[in-house]
């Protein structure tokens, strides 16, 4: 019996050792995490009060799609990065700034293709995915600020407040409900913006696209009293949902905008 348990523990330890890298830190006193990276980030909600970073994406069998392999030659040596000092063992520099925890990815995109960030529910997140990274976030109820350049932004079952901006990526957002405390602002230069809102959402919606088209199954353009159709002036669509509420602004220059009832 003793032998078996020792074997199991050894097995587990070895799993952790050659398995995925992980970094954990307590978030007591922290209410905002700022993460700068160049790769794709999957953000998940964790049950513990800690911030956890894990290599790769969660698959059915643990975390896979691992990145850089262990380097035998590097044993006993420390990795040096131009961007800062790796004080996490995860190739990231971390710094506490008041109630804000800053994380800066020191590894280039070529060495880390994606990782997972696990956060407690009530921590605001500022995420900059650099040039090539994308952001996938689910079930987040705190404030979100996402920025990418080429990568997409996918926010599933969130509540806002949300600020999302990308140059060429697409933005997909699905709301479970809409937080009325602060505005929601989503902009993309050339990508499409696709937002799903609960039917009973109270909001002041403004949608603007220079070259794209706005599609929606919400009644946003009131019929004119004389029965004439409104000819899109300035290509700005503005309207209230369910009597108005929080500001929701969707702006795209080239891409289409889709506003759906969920």
């Amino acid at each position, binding site marked *: 019996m003793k032998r078996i348990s020792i074997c199991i523990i050894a097995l587990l330890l070895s799993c952790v050792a050659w398995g995925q890298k992980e970094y954990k830190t307590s978030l007591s006193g922290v209410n905002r995490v700022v993460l700068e990276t160049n790769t794709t980030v999957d953000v998940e909600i964790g049950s513990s009060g800690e911030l956890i970073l894990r290599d790769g994406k969660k698959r059915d069998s643990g975390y896979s799609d691992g990145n850089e392999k262990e380097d035998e030659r590097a044993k006993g040596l420390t990795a040096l990065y131009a961007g800062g000092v790796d004080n996490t063992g995860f190739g990231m520099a971390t710094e506490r700034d008041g109630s804000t925890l800053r994380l800066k990815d020191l590894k280039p995109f070529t060495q880390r293709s994606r990782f997972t960030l696990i956060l407690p529910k009530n921590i605001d997140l500022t995420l900059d995915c650099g040039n090539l990274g994308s952001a996938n976030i689910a079930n987040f109820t705190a404030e979100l600020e996402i920025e990418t350049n080429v990568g997409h932004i996918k926010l599933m079952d969130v509540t806002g407040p949300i600020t999302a901006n990308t140059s060429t990526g697409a933005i997909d957002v699905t709301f479970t409900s809409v937080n009325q405390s602060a505005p929601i602002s989503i*902009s993309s230069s050339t990508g499409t913006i696709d937002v799903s809102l609960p039917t009973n959402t109270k909001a002041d919606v403004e949608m603007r696209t220079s070259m794209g088209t706005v599609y929606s199954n919400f009644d946003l353009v009131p019929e004119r009293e004389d029965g004439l159709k409104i000819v899109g002036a300035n290509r700005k669509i503005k309207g209230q949902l369910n009597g108005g509420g929080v500001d929701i*602004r969707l702006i795209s220059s080239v891409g289409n905008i889709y506003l759906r009832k969920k």
Partner: protein
Amino acid sequence: MKCNEVENKIIPFLEGDLDTQQEIAMKEHLASCEQCQRQVAETQQMLEVFNEVEDAVPSDRVRGNFIEFLEEEKSLQRYTIGRKETKEFPWKMAFQIAASVLILIAGYAWGSFQKGSENDAQIAELRLEATQLKQDMMLAMLDNRSVSKRIQAVNYTEDIAAPDEEVLEALIDRLHFDGNVNVRLAAVEALSRYSENEKVKDAFIKSLTNETNPNIQIAVIQFLVDVQEKRALAPMQKLLEHTETPNFVKDRANEGIITLM
């Protein structure tokens, strides 16, 4: 029948008012009692004297006087009654009541008017304070580290009818220096409403030279073309020459240049 009883019934006896039984008893007693006989005789004598006296009748003069007097008294009575009637409707008191009611109403009206104007002044003051407060709050919120709050602050300026220089400068500051594209976009939108302001125009021209985000570039070009700002031609030309400018922005700049020229 005894003497004292007889005494009480002498007058009814003499006038024949007694019943027969009493009369018999009376006669029996009178036959035996001299004293009572004498008394009956005396009473009869007195009654006879009474009957002899004639009823006094007032003379015509007295009668006339009386009627005259009565008439006089009657007319006097009517006059007094009339006077009493006029007295019963108290004009003076009515005037007093009316006056006091009038004063009351006037006082109320004056009071409410005074209070009204006072309230109006207070409301105006409160409004001003609220605007000031909102402005201060907005200025403070513009430095909030939360992007969403900063956007909210920029949006608040829509509620400020005539923002002062401080607010405009804060907004221009956001337009130039905010790290977040969405805040800069909100600032462009907020500032676009002050198309008459020279400072705002200058800020947009400067932004056109520095800004790299296509969304903002397009919004800025739109504004400058709308206000017919010829000074925007040079930076637009530069945008066209710049290799990093996306083609769809170049298209916009081209359109703008044609419109302005």
